[in-house]
């Protein structure tokens, strides 16, 4: 097991370096550097100003030289300064990360609870399966921005029960964005848990449990669910990456400054320091979560090893 973990950690390290290079080159190759954008927005910028600002921001250097300079600074623990937000990158990332984690952890937690609950219902009561499939279909097909706006109109504008959005702390500000995201995410859990639980309920040990007189609820919760959890863990591991990458659309509709919006702005604004650190954070968390899911699957089902 230790060998597996060490080998996977080495893979993650190599992958992180490759990803950082790819991300840097891709952002650098996007049309229009920040100074060109500034020229388009401010007619007073002369060619002399453009040359001076390019040199000041290091944009006059070849892309590879800029990447090596960035990588060297990062190895010394200096993540740099955001050009777009005039703040140290790490300082900027932290509140956005907390905001996204708060939002997405709650939303995915609720999605797992409701989704697996619906899946269990469909597996235990096959006549309710069409209803569960219908709910999952609607959840999957509903665009988040549309649902978000609908919820805002109903609960914030018409009824006035909840705020329409904002980044203030307090549970009231979380209800609508969490509901929007949870609804969008529950479809995958409902569908996969239905399939996995149905398969698990066909297993011989379930027949044995029933023969021993275990209640249907106990059979489902204690005997079928652990076996059905293996595919769900894979989805949850991927969602862990989503938790740190934020939810761009929901964050935009509810005016929450989270990771999704931050990454989008950084990439579109060619803010290399910010974009790279944020993208690498997402990549590393996703890879570590996948490793954790693999380990959990081995623990749940020793046959996988």
């Amino acid at each position: 097991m230790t060998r597996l973990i060490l080998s996977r950690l080495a893979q993650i390290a190599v992958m992180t370096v490759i990803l950082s290079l790819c991300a840097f080159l891709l952002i650098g190759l996007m049309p229009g550097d920040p100074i060109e954008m500034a020229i388009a927005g401010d007619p007073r910028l002369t060619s002399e100003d453009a040359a001076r600002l390019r040199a000041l921001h290091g944009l006059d250097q070849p892309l590879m030289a800029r990447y090596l300079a960035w990588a060297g600074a990062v190895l010394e623990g200096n993540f740099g300064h955001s050009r777009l937000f005039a703040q140290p990158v790490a300082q900027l990332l932290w509140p956005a990360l907390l905001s996204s984690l708060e939002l997405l952890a709650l939303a995915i937690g609720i999605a797992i609870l409701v989704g697996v609950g619906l899946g269990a219902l469909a597996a235990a009561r096959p006549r309710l399966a069409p209803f569960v499939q219908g709910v999952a279909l609607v959840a999957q097909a509903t665009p988040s921005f549309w649902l978000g706006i609908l919820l805002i109109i109903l609960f914030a504008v018409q009824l006035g029960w909840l705020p329409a959005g904002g980044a203030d702390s307090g549970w009231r500000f979380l209800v609508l964005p969490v509901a929007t995201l949870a609804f969008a995410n529950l479809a995958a859990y409902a569908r996969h848990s239905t399939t996995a639980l149905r398969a698990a309920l066909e297993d011989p040990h379930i027949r044995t449990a029933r023969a021993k007189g275990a209640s249907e609820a106990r059979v489902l919760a204690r005997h079928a669910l652990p076996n059905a959890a293996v595919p769900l863990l894979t989805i949850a591991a991927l969602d862990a990456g989503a938790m740190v990458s934020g939810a761009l659309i929901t964050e935009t509709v509810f005016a929450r400054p989270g990771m999704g919006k931050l990454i989008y702005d950084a990439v579109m604004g060619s803010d290399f320091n910010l974009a790279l650190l944020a993208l690498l954070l997402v990549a590393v968390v996703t890879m570590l979560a996948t490793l954790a899911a693999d380990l959990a699957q081995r623990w749940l089902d020793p046959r996988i090893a």
Partner: protein
Amino acid sequence: MAVRFLICLLLLALPAQAQPARDSLTIGITQYPSTLHPNIENMVAKSYVLGFARRPVTAYDPDWRLICLLCETIPTLENGLAQRETTPDGRPGLRVTWVLREGLRWGDGTPITTADLRFTYDAGRDGTTGIGPAEFYRSAYEFIAEDERRFTLRFDRVTFEFGSLGDFAPLPAHLERARWEQEPRTYRTRTLYDTEPTNPGLWNGPFRVAQVQAGAAITLERNPHWSGPEPHFRRITIRTVENTPALEAQLLAGQVDMIAGELGLPVEQATALARRTGTRFRTEFRPGLIYEHMDLRMDQPPLDDRRVRQALLHALDREQIVARLFEGRQTVAHTSVNPLDWPHDENVRRYPHDPARAAALLEEAGWTMGPGGIRRNAAGERLSIELMTTAGNRSREATQQVIQAQWRAVGVEARIRNEPPRVLFGETLSRRRFTGAVLFAWVSAPEGVPRTSLHSTEIPTAERNWSGQNYPGFRNAEMDALLEALPIELDRERRRALWHRLQAIYAEELPALPLWFRQDAHVWPPWLTGVRPTGHLNPSTLWAEQWGVR
């Protein structure tokens, strides 16, 4: 049970009965300032927010007049505060003096003196500080602090704008000079404006920054050391909601009191909101300096023929587009000079919707009607023009479709190809990689001389770092001469004549097809008074101490 029910009922009723104190105001805008440093980066959100908390020496007021905010008198040649002189290298120059008003203080009580302006000058002159447009600092070759309130700048050129100090506003030397001197190159990452924006000593307006929620909101409170009239509002919060439907929802839900016109709802959305909500909000549409137009690639066929450009404009029914798409809430443009700006020429050539005249001009230019209703020239080439705009901008995309239909009616094919703003502005326009027409907007200042968009030396090329905004490739010797003569002509009436000639050439040659001047939609609560939109780059917040409650 009945008592409990009654208590519950009373509790529910309480918020409705309580009258809001209305000593605070929450404003919604659609952009968050990337920095709060007054002299680094230019963006509308920053000018709007800083309008509450800092004051420049001079500004254009809502009536488009240049006025003093921190100074006593606008310098003129007549009052002797401006004098012509010769620069040390023998060029005609100007020596201009301003006197700061008495009693000006920073938010920590430190007096504002010429030492602050000296620091601003030193930082601006040093190219490594990171200030964007530095033409002012290159031209002002000497700063003389005559005493604590009186300072003189010597310019190496004569321009009619000499009385305006524009972005040259004092920075607090007692807080910032040492940081800047430590290392000018990294000053922009260490300035207190971004590392400690709630330091009261940074601000000299009626309000100071009290709280910053990065990317989301900035809260301002009264500045106790403000020497002007005390503002009505104790606290002002500016919230950023980039998505305009979400911003509208926050307004309707009562989370924001008003939406700033400078950075608010598009005209069509504000019009629909006003229709739906009746008298719940007061909506004012104010024409501004945002000039929607179509740049034409006029150094390539078929748009190198003036008759084709004129025909394209005659083919457009701009009044109808404005009426149908914007409910009449835009001002149809005839040149790039705004009708609100004094140099505007009312008698400039106009191009009414006239498909017959458009067809005649095209015939004259050798484009005859061909199969499929599209004109062809003698070589059999179709009169087909690529029409571009910023992808995702709904009003521009709708406009584009109407233009396509109206051009089609006179036998011109428009091929729509849109790009994200980043690609369009960062690559296609700036490197002149378009072949036909590009629909976008310019923002300018009152009496802004359009040198960068019309002078032949401002055509972007690799040699000049792709700077300059003469994207059409317009070359006209008389226009070049006018653009050089205008800034140095100090006599207003003679300048008016130059402006009229400039507009006449523009209207005749049509390097760009004028569409309309955009209006800003200001949405206020009915109880708010005193807000005067300016329509130009100096935001209404520069007079926030006059805002009040009915």
